C-alpha cells in the first residue's frame, strides 16, 4: 500500500515536471486563463452602454425635446445624427452609423395633450437581433419613465397599475456576473482536457509509455498518477480565475469556498476522466489535440454559457445531461451568486461523480485492454 503510494507520488512528480519544465509551457498553462478571464469578462456582456442613435423629430415640440433629453441623459444612448427627412433613415441604418432611429411624428405633443396615445416609431438594426432587442427594451423603459413624468407634470392621471421589478441574486442584471463565474468552469475545462489527453499521447508518441509499462506500476496507479497532476493544475487555474472575479471585477462571493471547491474537484475529475479516455484512443499528439477540440466544442456550446439550456429542444436537453461543464457552470453560479449549499447542489454533484467514476473506470478498462 505504502509502496503503491510512493510510486504514485513519483509519477505525479514526473508528470508535473514534464508539463512545467519550460517557460512556454508554464506560460501557456497559467497566463491564458487570467488573460481570457479579463478580456471576456469585459467583452462577454449583453448589457449596452453605448448605443448610437439618430432621430427624426417632425414635431419639434417641448414634449419631443423632453423625450429626447431623457434619451440623451440616460448615459446609454448617444445621438449621432439628427435627420431632416425620413428618407435618410435607410442609409443611416444600412451603413451602421446608428443602431436605432427614433422617429417622432408631428402630432406627438398634440396627442399627448389630448390624453391620447402618441406613437414613437423606433427602427432598429436587426443584424444582431439580440443587441437590437436589448436596446429596444432600454428605449421602452425610458419612454415609461417619460410617460409617468408627463402625467404628473400635466395633471393627468397616471396608469392605475405599476409593475415593480426585482431580480434575485443579481439585482442590476449584469451579464458579467453571469459570465465570469461561468468562466471558472469553461476555461479550466478545455485546459484540463487537453493537458490530460496530451500527457498520455506524448508518452505514446515518444515511446516512453512502453517503458512505463515495464515498471512495477499497475494500470490503476498510472491512471491516478496521470489524473492527479491535471486536477491539481486545473484547481490552480480555477483559483486564478476566482481571484480575478473577486479582486478585479469585484463580483461579490455569496457562498462557501468549501462547497465551490468540492464541486470543482468532482468536475475536474470528470474532465480528467474524459481526457484520459480520449488519450486511450488517440495515437499521436496531433490527434489528441484535434479530438479534444471535437469533444470540447459541443460541450461548450451545450453548456448553457452562451444560450440558455431551457431554450434547447428536448433532445439536446437530454444530451446535456452527460456534459460535465453544464453542472460545473451551474455550481459556479449557484455557489458564487446564490450561496447555495451542498443539499441544494445535489442535483449537480451526483451526476458529476457519476461521470467521473464512469470515465475513470472506463479508462482503466481501455488501458488494460491496450496493455495486454
Amino acid at each position, binding site marked *: 500500500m505504502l509502496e503503491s503510494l510512493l510510486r504514485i507520488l513519483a509519477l505525479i512528480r514526473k508528470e508535473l515536471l514534464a508539463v512545467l519544465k519550460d517557460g512556454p509551457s508554464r506560460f501557456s498553462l497559467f497566463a*491564458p486563463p487570467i*488573460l481570457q478571464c479579463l*478580456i471576456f469578462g*469585459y*467583452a*462577454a*456582456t*449583453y*448589457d*449596452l452602454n*453605448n*448605443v*448610437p442613435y439618430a432621430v427624426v423629430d417632425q414635431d419639434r415640440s417641448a414634449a419631443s425635446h423632453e*423625450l429626447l433629453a431623457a434619451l440623451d441623459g440616460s448615459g446609454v444612448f448617444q445621438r449621432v445624427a439628427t435627420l431632416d427627412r425620413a428618407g435618410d433613415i435607410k442609409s443611416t441604418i*444600412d451603413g*451602421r452609423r446608428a443602431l436605432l432611429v427614433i422617429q417622432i411624428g408631428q402630432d406627438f405633443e398634440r396627442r*399627448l395633450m389630448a*390624453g391620447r*396615445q*402618441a*406613437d414613437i*416609431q423606433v*427602427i*432598429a438594426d*436587426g*443584424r*444582431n*437581433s439580440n443587441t437590437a*432587442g*436589448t436596446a*429596444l427594451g432600454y428605449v421602452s423603459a425610458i419612454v415609461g419613465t*417619460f*410617460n409617468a413624468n*408627463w*402625467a404628473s407634470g*400635466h395633471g*393627468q*392621471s397616471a*396608469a*392605475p397599475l*405599476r409593475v415593480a*421589478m*426585482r*431580480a*434575485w441574486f*443579481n439585482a442590476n*442584471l449584469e*451579464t458579467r*456576473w453571469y459570465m465570469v463565474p461561468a468562466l471558472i468552469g469553461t476555461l479550466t475545462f478545455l485546459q484540463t482536457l*487537453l493537458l490530460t489527453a*496530451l500527457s498520455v499521447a506524448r508518452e505514446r508518441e515518444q515511446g516512453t509509455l512502453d517503458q512505463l509499462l515495464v515498471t512495477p506500476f499497475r494500470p490503476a496507479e498510472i491512471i491516478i498518477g496521470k489524473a492527479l497532476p491535471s486536477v491539481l493544475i486545473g484547481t490552480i487555474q480555477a483559483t486564478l480565475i476566482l481571484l480575478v472575479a473577486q479582486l478585479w471585477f469585484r463580483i461579490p462571493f455569496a457562498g462557501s469556498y468549501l462547497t465551490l471547491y468540492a464541486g470543482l474537484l468532482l468536475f475536474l475529475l470528470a474532465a480528467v476522466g474524459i481526457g484520459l479516455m480520449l488519450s486511450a484512443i488517440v495515437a499521436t499528439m496531433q490527434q489528441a*489535440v*484535434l*479530438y479534444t*477540440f*471535437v469533444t470540447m466544442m459541443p460541450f461548450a*456550446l451545450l453548456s*448553457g454559457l452562451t*444560450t440558455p439550456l*431551457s431554450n434547447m429542444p428536448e433532445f439536446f436537453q437530454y444530451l446535456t445531461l452527460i456534459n460535465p461543464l453544464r453542472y460545473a457552470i451551474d455550481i459556479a453560479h449557484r455557489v458564487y451568486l446564490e450561496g447555495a449549499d451542498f443539499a441544494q447542489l445535489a442535483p449537480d454533484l451526483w451526476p458529476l461523480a457519476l461521470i467521473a467514476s464512469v470515465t475513470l473506470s472506463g479508462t482503466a478498462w481501455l488501458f488494460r485492454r491496450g496493455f495486454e
Partner: protein
Amino acid sequence: MRSAPDRPVLPSSAGGAAKSRRVKALVLKETYQLFRDPSSIAIGIIIPLLLILLFGFALSLDVKNVPVAVVLEEASPAATDLAAGFVLSPYFDALLLTSMPQARELMLQRKVDGIVRVRPDFVRRLGLGDAEAQVLVYGIDANKARIIESYAQGAIAQWAARRTAEGFEAAAGGSAVVQSRLWFNEANDSHYFLVPGLIVLIMTLIGALMTALVMAREWERGTLEALFVTPVRAGEILLAKMIPYFVLGMFGLGLCILASRFMFHVPLRGSIWILAGVSMLYLIVALAIGLLISTATKNQFVSSMTTLVVTFLPALFLSGFLFDLRSMPAAVRFLSYALPARYYVNLLQTIFLAGDVWSVILPNAAVLAGMACGLLALTRAVSVKRLG
C-alpha cells in the same frame, strides 16, 4: 538603364515551370496528408457539420415557455383575470399558486424562472389608481432575466389596456407608445444572427487551427528540414501549405451557405460573389495567422493553444457576433480592431441580412485585404529567417 531583352529568356520561363511543378507536387503531398489523417477529417469536416447541426437545432436565444409562478394572494376576478393572461401567453408556462413561500421555494429549486405576485389588496388599490404587481426574476442569467421581465411587463400592460377598454378603470392620460421595427430580421429569428457567427467560427477553425497544427508538426518531426534541402523555396512551401486548406475552407463556406439557405432559412440579400470574395480574404488572413504561429512556436501544443487564444475564442467573443462591441471598454474595443474576425462578422451580417451596402463592404474588405498582405509578407519573412 538596362533593357530586359539582354537577359536570357529561357531560364526564367523554365524556372517558372519548375516552380509551378514544385508547388504542384507539394500541394499533392499536403492533400494526401490531409486526407490520410483521420484527425484532419475530424476538424475539416466533422466539426463544421457538428457546428451547423448545433447552431441549427440546439442554440437559440428566443426565450419561450418560461416557467413562472403566478401568486394570487387575492382571489378577486381582476386578479384571476391577470393570471389568465400569463396562462394563455405562449411565452410563459404559468403555475398558479396562492402562497408566496411556496413560490420562493420553487424559484430556489430552479423549477420556475420568475414569480408574478398579486398582493392581497390588489382590487381596492386598483380602484384608488395605485395598484402594484410584483415581478421577481431569477437574475443569475441576466440576459434571460431581462427578456422575461420585458415579457411580463408586456403581459401586464396588455391586461391593463384590456381593462381600460372594458371600462373597469379610467384611461390614463396621454402616453407615448413605442412602435418598434426590427429591420433585416422582422420576425426576430435568432438564426439570422447565428449564421454569420457560425461561418466565422468554421472559417477560423479550418483556416487557423488546422494550419497551425500542420506546420508545427513538420517542425517537430524535422520533415521541414528535409524539405529545405530540396530546391523548394520557403515561399513555395507556404503556398503549398495554404492551397489545400484554402480549398477545404471554401468547401466549408459552401456547406454553411447551403445550410443557411435550406436549414436555417436565412436570406442572402447581398451578392454571393461578394460573399465569396470577402470570405477568401478572411480565409487567407486566418491561414497566414496559423502558419505564422506555428512557424514561431514550432510546437504543436503551444501552437494550438496560442491559435485558440488568438483566433478562435476572439472570433466567438470579440467579433461582435454575440456581444456588442460598442459597449465594451475602450481597451477591449481597441483590441478588437486588431482582430480580423471583427471585420468579417460585420461583412457577413451586412451581406446576408442587409445586402450590398458598399459603405460597409469597402472599408471592411480593405482592412481584411491589408491584413492578408501584411501577414503573408510577415510569414514569409519569418520562415525565410528561420531557414537561415
